[in-house]
């Protein structure tokens, strides 16, 4: 029988638009902050979520395992866990394997098995496949997520991790005991899907390797983007905007070697009329990027925060159809859908600013500070 006939359709079997709340904080000096602040940020934005998905990404949380990829995996059953672990052992060296610590909460129910592995690719396998370790791990993740029914890798970078669940974000944060982790940057997401997927893998952030995306919006270019990116080995199994945006970022940054600013001018490309007014050399570059990656232009409303090792990038669609503001205090930079969320983290935040459509806000931790 078709799996969708046995249970309600899962994320990926239907396309579910959703509205959302996003927030982030980063310490430019690389100081580690507990998860309490970012959880607080999500409280005043409860209206923007509906309890059907919340999540966080933290960077710099596993310093003792900084050289290992941290895989966070949901399993539906012990059987699929055994099967998947056999596969993992055939491809990777597992230096530590454990259940991710959680706290029982009435608001969070139906949890799957949630496991964490610190791994490194087997040198012999890497050499025989002639790929670098990032590409290898990315392929392992794609393989598990497409071939193992009931197993889902939701985090796969080094010295960072994603924590997500079905529930309101502030409950999800408590559930995962985020106050026990220290990160130099945090991003967070609360979801308002228009129907009930009820699957943990569908919550956000969405991640591949160390790149994570939280996103608020519904992109109208989705299928154009998806059908293009799938030419390069990505499989959009979840049918969500966030997933395709993550793959686009991975493709442009890791595979094409674009800078963050260049990446932003592909996905939120300036209008031709704006490009025409730019000085010669900049105009040539912008025209070139639009001509080369037309299918990666993202239209429709979005505000996204892209997290990566050592920094964050916030970006709005080119018409600015979703709210997003930034603020500062000391070495901290705050980004959120609403100013209230920033004030919840830092009541005295300064320089509150609403970036214009297509304007990339890039914040990096000082070199060597993480």
């Amino acid at each position, binding site marked *: 029988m078709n799996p969708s006939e046995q249970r309600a359709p899962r994320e990926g079997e239907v396309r579910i*638009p959703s509205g959302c709340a996003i927030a982030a904080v980063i310490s430019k000096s690389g100081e580690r902050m507990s998860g309490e602040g970012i959880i607080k940020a999500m409280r005043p934005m409860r209206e923007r979520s509906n309890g059907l998905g919340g999540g966080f990404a933290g960077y710099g949380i596993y310093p003792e395992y900084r050289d290992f990829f941290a895989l966070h995996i949901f399993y539906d059953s012990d059987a699929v866990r055994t099967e998947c672990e056999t596969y993992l052992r055939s491809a990777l060296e597992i230096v530590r394997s454990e259940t991710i610590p959680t706290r029982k909460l009435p608001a969070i129910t139906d949890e799957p098995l949630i496991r964490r592995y610190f791994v490194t690719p087997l040198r012999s396998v890497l050499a025989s496949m002639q790929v670098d370790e990032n590409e290898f791990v990315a392929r392992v993740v794609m393989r598990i997520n497409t071939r193992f029914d009931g197993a889902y890798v939701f985090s796969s970078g080094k010295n960072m991790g994603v924590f997500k669940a079905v529930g309101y974000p502030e409950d999800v944060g408590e559930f995962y005991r985020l106050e026990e982790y220290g990160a130099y940057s945090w991003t967070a997401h609360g979801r308002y899907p228009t129907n009930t997927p009820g699957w943990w893998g569908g919550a956000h952030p969405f991640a591949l390797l160390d790149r994570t995306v939280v996103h608020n919006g*519904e992109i*109208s270019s989705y*299928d154009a983007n998806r*059908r293009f990116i*799938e030419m390069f080995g990505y499989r959009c199994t979840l049918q969500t905007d966030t997933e395709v945006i993550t793959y686009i970022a991975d493709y442009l940054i890791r595979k094409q070697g674009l800078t963050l600013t260049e990446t932003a001018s592909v996905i939120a*490309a300036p209008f031709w009329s704006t490009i025409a007014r730019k000085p010669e050399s900049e105009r040539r570059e912008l025209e070139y990027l639009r001509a*080369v990656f037309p299918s990666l232009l993202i239209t429709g409303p979005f505000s996204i925060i892209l997290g990566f090792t050592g920094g964050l990038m916030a970006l709005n669609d080119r*018409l600015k*159809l979703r709210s997003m503001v930034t603020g500062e205090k000391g070495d901290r930079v705050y980004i959120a859908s609403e100013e209230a969320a920033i004030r919840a983290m830092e009541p005295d935040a300064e320089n509150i600013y609403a970036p214009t459509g297509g304007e990339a806000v890039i914040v990096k931790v000082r070199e060597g500070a993480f």
Partner: protein
Amino acid sequence: MGIQWNYPEFEVVRNDSRCIRCQVCARQCANEVHRYEAEIDAMISDESRCVNCQRCVSLCPTRALKIVKSDCRLRENANWNQDAIREIYKQAESGGVLLSSMGNPKPYPVYWDKILMNASQVTNPSIDPLREPMETRVSLGKKPSKVERDENGRLKCELSPQIQLSMPVMFSAMSYGSISYNAHLSLARAASELGVCWNTGEGGLHQDFYQYGAHTIVQVASGRFGVHKQYLEAGAAVEIKMGQGAKPGIGGHLPGAKVGPDVSRTRMIPEGSDAISPAPHHDIYSIEDLRQLVYSLKEATAYQKPVIVKVAAVHNIAAIASGIARSGADIIAIDGFRGGTGAAPTRIRDSVGIPIELALAAVDRRLRDEGIRNNVSLVVGGSVRSSADVVKAIALGADACYIATAAVLALGCHLCRTCQSGKCNWGIATQRPDLVKRLNPDIGSQRLINLMTAWNHEIKELMGGMGINSIEALRGNRLMLRGIGLNEKELQILGISHAGE
């Protein structure tokens, strides 16, 4: 008079109480249907010559005329329909191949009409093209698979040659010879003003039109008529015509009667000689030969012009397109089986080839599956009838559309489907000077500009409704489409869901 096997198809109905005997109809009709009989002071018509081109109807000052389908019918028979029987009579008399023109008129499914588009409601906003920028500009040509940087880490911004279009529609190939000087001039001027391209077809480029080169696609077909270095260099791109949707697998034939001094000079053939293009290119019997021609043309134009390979939509089109995408071509143009023609054997026009919608969907998918969609741009035609067809084509995966029938309609064509006779009363498919001058290129080009401008507004409107503000984000965006009344197989080939899903 012997037996008249076929009763005239049309009847000329003249309201005698309105007719003022001005004889406009008689002067306008190249088929000599109307005649003034002075003795009885009456207009007489010979219906057997009427092709229903509506010229007289459009010019009669008192609206005294109408042309109606004759109701003199053979006995009804669902199997032996009227056309089948009439054609038997014609062939029994002539012993010849039946000829037709314009596109396939048979009631095959038109998939454009079974596809519906999406619009934004609640979860994301639609965009108003009157208030917000809405971009329809496209660039056609090969896109690099990897960006490169110079030693200072700056992007190297050189692209292979591209064609820039202000909107995703171009005028497709119609040769000088099959259509008139004024028709070519109207197309060339309109394309230049609009910032799109027109296409010379296989008959060369008249010397007067070299000034429109930047917006001209010059075609190289199997007859190589009018092809020389300067011609190749004149255009914005060079198109190799391998096939045409209306007559896949066969060449062309321009009768000597249409080869007057100007056409002769432009085609570089003797005056009055038949211009026959062979069915295949005799230097292309396989895909590697095509590659050689593509590169010969690139050499000849110093790698400055994109090369288009135009093929008819036939059964194996996905594999053929994949071969072309690896042949060095920059753009593939696919012509569907409803595409128009100046003359084609009826049997071929009406029963060879496949619909462009299915061909496009299959090709776009195949090129993506093979990861080579970026190697080429896709242009589709045959037949694209409206801005809605254009938007659906782009959402299925096309980069741009080719239109020809729609363009000649704008110039005055009334789709009488007798272009092969050379007596086009609208001055389009003819070389007779008295008829050619009926098409005023000032008015003709303006009507083409009006049509394209209207379409561009509509394209923007449709995109805005979907919440899309750039044509790039529409291309291949099949989620914006739903089928209506299509079966599983058709939906699967088109790669779309059914309405309600």
